[in-house]
């Protein structure tokens, strides 16, 4: 089986690369500057591979993305599942899903040349100075990209909530929104959490938007209006260009890649388990 081969070689690679970069430094260091080590005897020959700023940047951008995607995606799911007439639903659902079909490089372009300058212009009008490449621009556009994942998965789980629960609430005189928020939403919550986790894993693994719109310098900051970097950006930054294959710089990219793989894998597995157990409950 080919797929098994892929999986095995990934594990093999991961072991090989983690053996060469000290895991503890990597996980706790606060400095990230892999662009050193030109000569063997140079000071700071190994570079600085503290991945904390990189992880924080990823977290920040993912957070912004989910702040955009979760409310909009959920509300769309509520509307599609409970309010929209059949014809409206048939028109809106594919339109929203079109957002998922747009290549990420297009979103990156959009973030870099439209949303970034727009946010900067807005901030300048308010009296702040904000760079064009900022965590907010990248996160917001990423959020747009994730909306369809959240909305269509949540729509599915909301539709899977038994009608009898709704009928019970209506019989007690609840309005549609009360039924939705107090009966359907709690019942569908595990599934929605699953959708959320899948969305997060998408956001963490997303590359092109952040490469184009989030900036390259590792920046330990809590201000979302600054340029920030992410795991995927660093992988691209380190690996595009020619260099020796076994330099610590290259290996750091692989280590980041493995971290990325493991984190998204865990998120996916949890999401799948949550969704599956939820389905079993109502089937």
């Amino acid at each position, binding site marked *: 089986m080919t797929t098994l081969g892929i999986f095995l070689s990934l594990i093999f690679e991961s072991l090989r690369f983690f053996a060469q970069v000290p895991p503890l430094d990597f996980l706790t260091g606060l400095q990230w500057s892999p662009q050193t080590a030109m000569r063997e005897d140079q000071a700071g020959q190994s570079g600085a591979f503290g991945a904390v700023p990189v992880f924080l940047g990823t977290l920040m951008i993912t957070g912004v993305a989910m702040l955009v995607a979760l409310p909009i995606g959920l509300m769309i799911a509520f509307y599609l599942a409970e309010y929209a007439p059949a014809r409206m639903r048939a028109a809106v659902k594919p339109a929203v899903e079109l957002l998922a079909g747009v290549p990420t490089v*297009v979103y990156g372009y959009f973030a870099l040349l439209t949303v970034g300058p727009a946010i900067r212009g807005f901030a300048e009008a308010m009296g702040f100075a904000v760079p064009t490449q900022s965590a907010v621009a990248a996160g917001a556009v990423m959020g747009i990209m994730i909306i369809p994942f959240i909305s269509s998965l949540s729509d599915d789980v909301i539709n899977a909530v038994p009608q009898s629960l709704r009928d019970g609430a209506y019989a007690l005189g609840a309005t549609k929104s009360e039924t939705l928020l107090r009966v359907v939403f709690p019942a569908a919550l595990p599934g929605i959490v699953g959708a959320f986790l899948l969305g997060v894993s998408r956001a963490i693994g997303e590359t092109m938007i952040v490469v184009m719109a989030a900036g390259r310098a590792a920046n330990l900051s809590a201000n979302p209006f600054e340029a920030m970097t992410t795991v995927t950006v660093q992988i691209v930054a380190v690996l595009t260009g020619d260099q020796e294959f076994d330099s610590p710089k290259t290996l750091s990219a692989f280590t980041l890649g493995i971290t990325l793989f493991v984190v998204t894998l865990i998120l996916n597995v949890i999401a799948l388990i949550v969704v599956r157990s939820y389905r079993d409950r109502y089937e």
Partner: protein
Amino acid sequence: MTDARPLADRAALARIARRRRGEAAFRTASMAAVVAAVAMLGWLLVTLVGSGATAFYQHVITLDVALDPSKLDPTGARDPAELQKASFRPILQSAIYGRFPEATGRDERRELFALISVAGATDRLRRMVRDDPALVGTTVRITAPVSDVVDQLLKGRIDRKVDATLRPVSDRQIAWIDALRASGEIKARFNATFFTATDSRDPELAGIASAVVGSAMALAVALMLAAPIGIAAALYLEEFAPKNRITDIIEININNLAAVPSIVFGLLGLAVFLSFFGLPRSAPLVGGFVLALMTLPTIIIAARSALAAVPPSIAAAALSVGASPVQAVFHHKLPLAAPGILTGVIIGMARALGETAPLLMIGMVAFVTEIPSSLTEPASALPVQIFLWSDSPERAWAERASAAILVLLIVLGAMNAAAIFLRQRLEKRW
């Protein structure tokens, strides 16, 4: 019960009113979310069309160039090889200086010369002389692209009212451009260069041809690998595999692989194909391998669900008239599942076409000025070209990037439409 009697007290009525308002607010909010999402899609498309549509035409300048033999061919031998080496820059300069004799100062002349796409014009002249060396000594009329700044000005992307120090064209240049435009020497025409040329250092000469060919090659490789392997894997898992722990693990694996970030596949490609097998960097062959790995899970999942949707009665009927299990699958189930499988393959390919990150990893970001002619030559891909162009500072690049995005989106739209069409026309419902 004819006389109206209040059903409840005032407080209860107020509560009902509040609950109804809450209901209305919630409903409005949910509709607003839909409107917001659709508006974002609209904003995206409008921006792209607005900034990209103008790249499909281009301004060209018509110039009479005297092919001065004393500059091109001082020896008088008319040797074609020597002629190709000659510099066409001076004669181009004299041509444009001759058009505006009043420009005499050094700076003035430099600004004047900057109106033309020098690389484009000299290239054209060189080719004319190569095809017909007898032209040397005569005056020829050529049309060449104007430089990207002029083009952007004429398309209205450079604000003429901005202070002259803040814009890339001077007042003098604007006066010349307007004079040329009024006399018809500068004209707008369809930008065929964009489709036939390769990447270039000058935006006015850059095109998507090499990227399109690179994408097509990589996609062809991906299709040839992923489709047969994916369908075979799906057939095995769905029809022949025993249900045990191992197949269970494989199944979970496939589902997970479908959600692995694409950049991880790029890393895998870098480590396995480039480093371990030593395949060439930047080659569409390797790009195709990586894209195939990436689309494989999608195809397997789609093919499995298509196979599972074929009712068991069909296989049972085949088996009952004496077909072997293999015959039942290949003669009956597979043809019936084909539309669904095909849809899955097309959607997988559409996703692969739009994918950028894994191609960056294996070095398909090369500056490619030749259309690749084999699978192992350095090539670019359409999304990568978009990435490269949008990172370039001049406005003209952004315009080119939007236009390339439009081309990409049209192709993707066509692929998805084909998938939907297939599904609706060919799929049977049981």
